[in-house]
């Protein structure tokens, strides 16, 4: 078993090295970085599905929250926005708190029959009260140089802080959602989480005062040096020449990627350690028992709801961390890019193909699928050229096929996925 794991990881390393040799090391490092991020996400999903059988299809939302956190932590604050709207925002926040407090109190005070109407009444009143301050505040914020800013900005702190914080934010959201939806079974939970993640994305897209919405936030400060600075830095040029580099731009770019690689690998290692330790301890056994049979686990004294909530929150936090890492690497937050295919289903494919319930499998799945996702494109082009090679160049069929070369990416991605699943139907590294 462990030999198989070692073999697969070895192979994966070889393939990446192959990319390095045959394409370029820049590509290989770039892919590896995203592989690492994907692996962290896959670990998050694996905790929920593999350990506990929770069918979360809302990964996208938690990833996006991580990304949002990266913006809110690292971008410089827009002083002007705070100046024109800070007061009103504070007031609307106060009204929100007041509304919540009022509701809590009222629900205690009134008899049960009156509870619902009173709550609804208070919510409506609160809604108007909050909007009274909130709407003008956001309008003022969004009016500030809309093409470039038009939002509150962030805290101007180092972006690395956003990684754990992104995890926390996602965990918070996960807790809230879990409280509401975890009673649902498998597929029904799935659609609920999917819905909630769409809601999260909608908020990030439309609440421009917070996130600039679809206008995107770009230029998130990096935790690593910039290439343009590196090529001018004496120490780097020295180092690179000593190592035999000729093209400084390339060396700088590689160096930056390597820095990210170290950071991401460290995060993955930490997450992995926690995940493995948890899974291998009685806690993991208990989770698997709950997954197998909720009723029996409950009868054996396991607080199924609390455990589900716990593991759900942990998984969401992990996805949040990965989301913050991704936004950091991209250097931007583009809400429109959060689509379920890329941020939910692809991650699921990673987990299942790697082997759900097995952390090493999930991580491997993350690597394999991301590599495929990226390399399916040149492979597809190559494939079509090869297929049409025997046809006369100007034949209709050849032209038609070549025009469709870009879409072989889908074809290949699917075909390889099907092949791997055929060869390892329980995942590359099954649970046991």
């Amino acid at each position: 078993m462990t030999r198989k794991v070692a073999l697969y990881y070895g192979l994966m390393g070889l393939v990446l090295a192959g990319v390095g040799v045959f394409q370029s090391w820049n590509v290989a490092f770039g892919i590896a970085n995203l592989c690492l991020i994907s692996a962290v996400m896959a670990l998050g999903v694996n905790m929920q599905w593999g350990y506990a059988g929770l069918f979360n299809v809302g990964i996208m939302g938690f990833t996006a929250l991580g990304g949002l956190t990266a913006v809110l932590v690292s971008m410089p604050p827009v002083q002007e926005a705070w100046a024109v709207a800070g007061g009103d925002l504070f007031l609307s926040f106060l009204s929100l708190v007041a509304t919540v407090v009022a509701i809590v109190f009222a629900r205690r005070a009134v008899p049960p029959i009156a509870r619902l109407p009173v709550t609804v009444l208070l919510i409506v009143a609160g809604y108007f009260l909050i909007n009274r301050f909130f709407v003008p505040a956001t309008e003022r914020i969004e009016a500030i140089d809309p093409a470039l800013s038009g939002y509150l900005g962030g805290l101007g702190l180092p972006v690395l802080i956003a990684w754990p914080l992104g995890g926390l934010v996602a965990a918070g959201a996960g807790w809230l959602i879990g409280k509401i939806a975890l009673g649902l079974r498998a597929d029904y939970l799935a659609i609920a989480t999917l819905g909630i993640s769409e809601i999260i994305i909608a908020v990030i897209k439309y609440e421009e005062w917070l996130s600039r919405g679809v206008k995107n936030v770009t230029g998130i400060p990096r935790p690593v040096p910039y290439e343009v600075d590196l090529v001018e830095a004496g120490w780097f040029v020295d180092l690179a020449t000593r190592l035999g580099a000729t093209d400084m731009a390339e060396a700088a770019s590689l160096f930056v990627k390597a820095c990210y690689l170290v950071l991401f690998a460290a995060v993955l290692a930490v997450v992995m350690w926690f995940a493995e330790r948890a899974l291998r301890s009685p806690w993991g056994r208990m989770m698997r028992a709950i997954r197998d049979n909720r009723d029996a686990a409950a009868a054996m004294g396991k607080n199924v709801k609390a455990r589900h909530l716990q593991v759900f929150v942990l998984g969401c936090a992990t996805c949040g961390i990965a989301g913050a890492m991704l936004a950091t690497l991209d250097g931007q937050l583009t809400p429109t890019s959060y689509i379920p295919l890329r941020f939910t289903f692809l991650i699921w494919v990673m987990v299942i193909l790697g082997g759900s319930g097995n952390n090493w499998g999930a991580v491997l799945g993350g690597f394999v699928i991301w590599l495929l996702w990226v390399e399916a494109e040149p492979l597809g082009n190559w494939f079509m050229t090869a297929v049409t090679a025997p046809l006369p160049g100007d034949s209709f069929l050849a032209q038609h096929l070549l025009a469709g070369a870009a879409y072989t990416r889908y074809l290949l991605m699917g075909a390889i996925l099907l092949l791997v699943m055929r060869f390892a139907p329980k995942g590359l590294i099954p649970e046991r």
Partner: protein
Amino acid sequence: MIKVEDVTKNFGGIRAVDGVSLEIQKGSITGLIGPNGAGKTTLFNIVAGHFPPSSGRIYLDGEDVTELQPHELFHKGLLRTFQIAHEFSSLTVLENLMVVPGDQPGEDLRHAWFNYRRVVANEERVRERAREVVEFLEIPHLENELAGNLSGGQKKLLELGRTMMVDAKIVFLDEVGAGVNRTLLQTIARSIQRLNRERGYTFCLIEHDMDFIARLCDPVIVMAEGRLLTQGSVQDVMNDERVIEAYLGTGRKHKRVSES
């Protein structure tokens, strides 16, 4: 010890349990019998907290436990088995047993992550106990088999085995005997008696095997059509006309004269 007060349970239009009141005395081995569909399992489920009664209340040692969840009742010392085996199918037999103890430090992530030594020490103890149970159930060779791969009877044994992993106050057994070999069942009966005598466990068991009931139980409660039909000593109950008609039958009429 357990007091059931006027409990009723409706499923849609079906009234599975209909105003049942009964008491289970501390230290007794109470039998619960009755025809199929009498509502015995439903009553168990209500007492063990799997769903709330439509009306009525449940008391454990005088405390109202009607609203409590199964896991909370477990921690109060109430254990139960399932009529249709609820094994953890992707766990091994040993793991199935090791899951049970409720106070394991390793089930708390703080210990699992930051205090692993304590977890390991406790694991040893739990494994020890699980091995004993496996021995007792006569399936030591299956210790590492996935529970999903067990035979029907073995699953029922495992179901019983789980209740032996902790020191319970009261154990509800739902047809542990069905599908279990009769010779082994005798061993089980003996150990129930022993646990009852030596450790003071209270038992309440549903069973259709009257020999088993007769041998172990006093008193016996009879349910039929969701209601309490009668209760009393085994003799009283077995000679009760209503019980014979509804449940026991006149018996043995099927004996076949061998044709040779």
